[in-house]
């Protein structure tokens, strides 16, 4: 495990090289450094994994690198922690990350800021790896903020367009709301347990907390708020669709495969705290459920290919939260892994389509592309099949497991299951609507497909992985509690398998056969608009928060509090002028002053007598 530190270090070194050599090295060197550092990190991960497995999987390693700071009783170190959960995340980040970097090296080739792009991407990977490897919550928070920063930088990568800058700011500010809550959660956790060391917290939490008491509930709720912000769940989800302003590989890496799943990782990492707060766990499940339904409906009405995928990402992360909430911890992380694979595949395929269509993203102007773009077509089919959980793709295994686990939950189980199945139906509708609108029907454009070793191989590898990942076994079982035991009735499984097929069938009827046009778009214009805009959350926030805030700012334009400092400034200036008058340069005046001052000093001294 001694080489563990190399994993976050390699991309960081890549970042430093790219930044220091900015403008001084060629594109090919930048490509070598940018892609190479992440690929190397991937190889080291494999090496570490070999060590990990050969020593038996039921274990964890804590590697102390050096102390970071001490404040009172808080001792924070740069320390890494490796167990089944962080190893699984390492696989996803370095594996999928390398493939996306590979793909990005071709996708971004024409961009004038090629080197800057890879510098940000490497920094992102370094921060994300710090996040998952941190052995204490402060270091985790450092990574957490680091990925937030990189997300901001990469969404606004094409900063020449003010809209992109706006999207970047929006993402930063909205996630900041969650981050603040997260930070307060950390403070409370430290106050209660006296440590922020993760293994210690996991050991102490069941002993120190009373299940369902106020303290663990509050802490878990605050941590949940942080997770919700980062993972774009209700109600802090509004930034993700706008984040699609970034380059497509960024969307694939940050806003589909890795960063947005950090919230899931956080909850899984601190599961002992959440287990002490069953109410919050139920909230986690409900947030997941509502997010997956709402964003599913929204995806059904989007016309921008990347926005459809963005809503789909929110909806799939909703499944992960749903799984966490119903106690299917392992299944949630499993779905995280499969989702990272197939969603990265979908995004990268979408990227290829966008390039082929000369940066056209509106699916209404696409159509019939399956003949011109065979490789993206088949990759998209695989990705969509995984997304809608068709057996025997990887998505089927992960989603099926989640639905089974939700049925088992005592009390609300079947109701939650019903919501999950409904979500699966909608998922099938919008995914195949997208597939049919882009690849079927009459041909509307003349695409030029980007070809080469940077485009097809990563897609094919991801496609293959997405198909077979269902048989992978993640080493999380030793870390996370098992899901409730038992078998649900067989009909539930049948329904769960049938629902996606039904959805596909309806999508086929509507979008390929052009029948049942009543379902095509919701006919009522206002409702359609409402769904198109993502259930009016943006408008609500604008009315509730933005408008009052800007109005207040307008009213207080000449900051009232400023009056006091301004008064001070004027007073200082006035006094300066006053005293400057005395420095008149006249010797006689100076001597007179000296003599009078001497008298004053004498008087003051005599007062003592």
């Amino acid at each position, binding site marked *: 495990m001694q080489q563990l530190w190399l994993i976050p270090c390699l991309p960081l070194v890549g970042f430093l090289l790219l930044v220091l050599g900015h403008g001084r090295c060629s594109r090919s060197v930048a490509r070598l450094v940018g892609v190479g550092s992440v690929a190397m990190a991937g190889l080291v991960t494999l090496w570490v994994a070999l060590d990990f497995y050969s020593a038996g999987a039921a274990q964890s390693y804590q590697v102390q690198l050096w102390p970071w700071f001490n404040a009172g009783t808080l001792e924070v170190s740069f320390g890494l922690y490796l167990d089944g959960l962080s190893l699984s995340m390492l696989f996803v980040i370095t594996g999928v990350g390398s493939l996306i970097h590979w793909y990005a090296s071709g996708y971004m080739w024409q961009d004038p800021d090629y080197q800057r792009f890879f510098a940000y991407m490497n920094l992102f990977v370094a921060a994300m790896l710090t996040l998952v490897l941190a052995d204490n919550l402060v270091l985790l928070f450092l990574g957490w903020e680091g990925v937030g920063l990189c997300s901001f930088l990469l969404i606004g990568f094409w900063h020449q367009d003010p809209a992109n800058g706006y999207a970047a700011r929006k993402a930063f500010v909205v996630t900041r709301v969650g981050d603040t809550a997260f930070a307060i959660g950390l403070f409370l956790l430290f106050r209660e347990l006296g440590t922020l060391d993760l293994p210690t917290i996991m050991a102490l939490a069941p002993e120190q907390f009373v299940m369902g008491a106020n303290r663990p509930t509050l802490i878990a709720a605050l941590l949940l708020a942080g997770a919700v912000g980062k993972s774009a769940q209700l109600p802090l989800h509004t930034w993700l669709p706008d984040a699609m302003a970034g380059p497509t590989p960024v969307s694939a890496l940050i806003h589909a495969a890795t960063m947005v799943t950090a919230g899931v990782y956080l909850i899984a990492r601190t599961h002992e705290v959440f287990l002490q707060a069953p109410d919050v766990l139920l909230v986690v499940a409900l947030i997941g459920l509502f997010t997956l339904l709402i964003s599913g409906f929204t995806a059904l009405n989007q016309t921008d290919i990347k926005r459809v995928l963005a809503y789909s990402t929110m909806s799939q992360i909703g499944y992960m939260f749903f799984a966490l909430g119903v106690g299917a911890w392992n299944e949630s992380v499993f779905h995280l892994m499969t989702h990272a694979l197939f969603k990265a595949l979908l995004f990268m395929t979408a990227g290829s389509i966008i390039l082929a269509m000369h940066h056209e993203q509106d699916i209404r102007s696409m159509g019939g592309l399956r003949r011109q773009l065979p490789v993206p077509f088949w990759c998209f089919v695989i990705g969509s099949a995984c997304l809608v959980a068709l057996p025997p793709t990887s998505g089927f295994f992960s989603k099926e497991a989640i639905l089974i686990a939700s049925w088992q939950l005592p009390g609300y189980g079947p109701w939650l299951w019903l919501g999950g199945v409904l979500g699966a139906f909608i998922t099938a509708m919008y995914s195949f609507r997208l597939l049919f609108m882009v690849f079927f029907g009459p041909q509307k454009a003349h695409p030029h497909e980007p070809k080469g070793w940077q485009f097809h191989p990563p897609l094919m590898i991801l496609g293959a992985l997405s198909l077979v990942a269902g048989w992978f076994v993640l080493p999380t079982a030793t870390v996370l509690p098992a899901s409730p035991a038992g078998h649900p009735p067989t009909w539930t499984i049948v329904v769960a398998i049938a629902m996606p097929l039904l959805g596909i069938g309806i999508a086929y009827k509507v979008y390929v056969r052009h029948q049942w046009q009543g379902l095509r778009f919701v006919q009522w214009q206002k409702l359609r608009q409402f769904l198109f805009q993502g259930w009016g959350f943006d408008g609500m926030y604008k009315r509730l928060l933005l408008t009052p805030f800007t109005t207040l700012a307008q009213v207080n334009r000449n900051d009232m509090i400023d009056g006091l400092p301004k008064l001070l400034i004027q007073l200082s*200036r006035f006094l300066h002028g006053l*005293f400057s008058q005395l*420095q008149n340069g006249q010797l006689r005046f100076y*001597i007179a002053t000296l003599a009078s001052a*001497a008298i*004053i000093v004498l008087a003051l*001294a005599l007062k*003592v007598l």
Partner: protein
Amino acid sequence: MNWLALTSLMPLLLVASISVILLLLLAFIRDHKLTCWITCLGLAMAAFWAFADMGDAPQQVTPLLIMDDFSRLLGGTVLLVSLACGWMSYTYLETADEIREEYYILLSLAALGACVLVASNHFASMFIGLELMSVSLFAMVGYMAHSKQQANMTLEAGVKYMVLSGVSSSFLLFGVALIYAYAGNLNIDLLVAAEGPRLQSGYLVIGSALLLVGVAFKMSWIPFHMWTPDVYQGAPAPVTGFLAGAVKVAVFAFAMRWLMMAQGGYLDLLLLGLTVMAVLSMVVGNLLALRQNNLKRLLGYSSIAHMGYIIVTLAASATLGAAALSTALEAAAIYLITYASMTMLAFAVISQLAAQDRRFESGTLAHYQGLLYQQPLLAGALMLAMLALAGMPLTAGFIGKYYLVLVAVDSQLWLLLSLLVLGSSLGLYYYLRVILVLCKTPVGDSRLTLGASEKLLLTLLVAVTLWLGLYPTPAIQWVQLAIQ
């Protein structure tokens, strides 16, 4: 006087011998470089000797001078300041149409006077040291009398300094006379135990107060500060550096001996007056600097404010009593050393600039606009000096101010502490204004040249200023050693 006493007095003898050697030398050879070399080497040797002697037993050399670690530490500091002053004078004089060599005789005499002042524990030697320093300085301040550009300013400054200094010295001398009348003795330590024609203590009070007037004048404590901006502006830049660095250190070192270390209860008599002066100096000094447009005047006001801050240590030693006296002494010594380093840095930059264009010292701040792009080393050094004077962390200024705050909090001097904080925040405004001017877009594009020796001097001063800020432990340990 035995051999041991003589060797312990060696730093002073070395400095004195510089002036003799130079006087003799100038009868035969006039060589600016050689003169400067001899002065600098002599000062360096003297400083080295002073520091090397540290840790030795205190030597009372005649009743007049005491060579203890305190004298050695602050005397060495004064000598180093004089060394920097001599070093920076070279280029400055090189570009002046003026007889150059005699300047170094005056400089070494002034340094000698400052060292005597630091080492005196007798009012007679104090007066000799003070006057030796001041009289040399009259000539140094007015040294550029033949320069067409500078004659007016420099002569005016010289005359002002001479007249005002004379007035203040007469107060001081009268004070000394009254104290003698009270105690029958001029040794500052023996006062309490004095056997002699004791007069009533009114003599002591008035004598001490008048003595304080003389000290306050040299320290430019408000309201005895009137001369400061005019003289600072008119004097040649290296001389201003000496005035701001060496004179202040030497006079305050005497004040520490007289008010903090000596038995006599002077401090209790003068505390009220000192507090009033501290309050005025901190507030009015900073206010006066606020919108000042000439850098040398600005530094003059800034030195008023800084000297106001240091009164905190005097006040603290009065309230704390003997127990924590050493903390106050330590704070004062560290403050003096850090202040000397950053002031000399600032004046070294001004001297180098003024050597190339006299408008840098006589004109407004506008001349410094965009200096960062024309002469990054000089501008960077000046920025560092400004940040240090403002008390930014990682510079020498922070350590000094930190000690003052520490002492003020320990002895619960809330009024002085709050004014210190207020003054520092006012100070930030004008120090940062200088930095802002340096960073603006340059107006012309006159490239300035800088010789190797000037670069070395600047580098050394920058290194000291940073070293005191980044790793002050050795310096602090040294000071603690000297204070014990």
